[in-house]
């Protein structure tokens, strides 16, 4: 194991530490709860001279992302971080970063989008940005956030990908909860991420290029097509980076995590920190002889359809937990995407959806047990009676 020591870190501190080790050329960021501690801690590293990063304190998130686009186009390894309304304010430029194919990394601390105003965890912010063209990684705990922030640099900069990456963690639950985080060796991190070399940087004055020109009916579509192909490439190229990470640091990350799933009859699909609670309940149920399992999608963009369908093929009844509402009147985003993925599959489990935890509403083991109980009932009736459920909302 290359991990040197275990440090008590919050998720935010873990991200800031990863950023210190990455030492991007430019960080332009605006503080917002619950991401503030990332910017605060990283600013300390800058002020203390521990990193040479150019830190740009901007006046808004729109400016933060704009500065990042400029810096990345200039040829700088670039990072920012945000949450909720900050991401919403960035919106216009979030799309521009992806469509300009600028490989920056943005840790996002998931928080409910207003309104009504709320500072606690749900996934409405990044789920809203799911079609912005960014790669999205959802992390369960501080260790994963830490390592995936480093991984994300390589994913973003992969020659076959060249897309920006969001590294998501649950607001307060992960971002402010203190956990032991095993740190990686500084030099090994530097070696792993390597030097940043972008093609056609703006600062190469001998080879002048134009970024962001008008692109009308004749070529816009082709540039969008390139983005689609880059996301498809990401499905193939990301495992290369994950394998190299495993070889270097010993931790194996995949598109999805399966927990006691292979022989399971009933399963929950959940992302981020809730997966920890589900694992606890799965262990309890297994002791009682109930064949319960968990599937945790780690990477939501690109959507690993094949892997998810394959993982669910022996499951009889599946509950998909969404920590955001898409207001499609057809359930949350994870549910609709998985269900659409299963359309191509020969074996179709009974599938149900639970919207939960909006605005930081706690999710307890008792709630998860209720879901498994519902699944048992679905299994016995061989039919889904309520496909759309609101777990933890008062009736």
């Amino acid at each position, binding site marked *: 194991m290359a991990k040197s020591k275990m440090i008590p870190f919050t998720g935010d501190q873990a991200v800031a530490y990863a950023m210190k080790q990455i030492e991007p050329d430019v960080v332009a960021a605006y503080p917002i709860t619950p991401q503030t501690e990332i910017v605060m801690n990283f600013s300390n590293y800058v002020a203390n001279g521990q990193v040479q990063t150019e830190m740009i304190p901007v006046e808004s998130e729109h400016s933060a992302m704009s500065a990042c686009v400029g810096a990345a186009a200039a040829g700088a390894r670039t990072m920012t971080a945000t949450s909720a309304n900050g991401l919403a304010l960035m919106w216009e430029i979030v799309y521009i970063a992806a*469509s*300009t*194919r*600028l490989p920056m990394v943005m840790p996002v601390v998931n928080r409910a989008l207003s309104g009504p105003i709320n500072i606690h965890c749900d996934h409405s912010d990044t789920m809203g940005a799911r079609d912005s063209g960014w790669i999205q990684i959802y992390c369960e705990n501080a260790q994963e956030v830490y390592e995936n922030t480093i991984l994300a640099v390589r994913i973003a900069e992969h020659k076959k990908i*060249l897309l920006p990456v969001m590294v998501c963690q649950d607001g307060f639950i992960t971002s402010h909860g203190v956990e032991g985080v095993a740190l990686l060796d500084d030099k090994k991190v530097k070696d792993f991420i390597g030097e940043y070399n972008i093609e*056609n940087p703006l600062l190469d004055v001998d*080879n*002048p*290029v*134009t*970024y*962001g*020109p008008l*692109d009308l009916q*004749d*070529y816009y579509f*082709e*540039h969008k*097509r*390139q983005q689609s*192909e*880059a996301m498809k490439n990401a499905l193939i190229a990301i495992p290369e980076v994950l394998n190299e990470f495993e070889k270097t640091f010993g931790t194996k990350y995949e598109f999805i995590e399966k927990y006691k799933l292979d022989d399971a009859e009933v399963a929950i699909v959940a992302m981020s920190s809730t997966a920890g609670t589900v694992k606890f309940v799965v262990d309890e149920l297994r002791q009682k002889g109930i064949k319960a399992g968990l599937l945790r999608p780690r990477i939501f963009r690109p959507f690993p359809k094949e892997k998810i369908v394959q993982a669910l093929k022996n499951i009889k009844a599946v509950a998909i937990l969404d920590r955001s509402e898409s207001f499609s009147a057809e359930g949350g985003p994870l549910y609709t995407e998985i269900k659409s993925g299963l359309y191509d599959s020969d074996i179709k489990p009974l599938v149900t959806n639970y919207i939960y935890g909006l605005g930081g509403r706690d999710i307890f083991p008792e709630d998860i047990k209720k879901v498994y109980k519902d699944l048992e009932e679905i299994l016995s009736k061989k039919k889904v009676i309520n496909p759309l459920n609101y777990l933890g909302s008062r009736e």
Partner: protein
Amino acid sequence: MAEKKKSWKEIPIGGKITEAGNAEQYKTGSWRTFRPEKNEKKCINCLFCWIYCPDSSIKVKDSKMDGFDYEHCKGCGICASICPVKCIDMVKE
């Protein structure tokens, strides 16, 4: 104007333009409804038209007005409007 357009595989990613000054290759002359024409006798070569033309479509040779670049002139008529001796007429294409 009917040049063969490139596929998504043949163009730089992200909408970048990697060749300097290639806007010249983008011919916009066909957008024109009215064409500027110069009355040589009236022209005093003040070059106001050259200063005001938003599309750099006034040709200049030896410090003198040398006609129009009809491949890029969009026929906006600013030259005709600004000309102090009214030597430019806008003629329907």
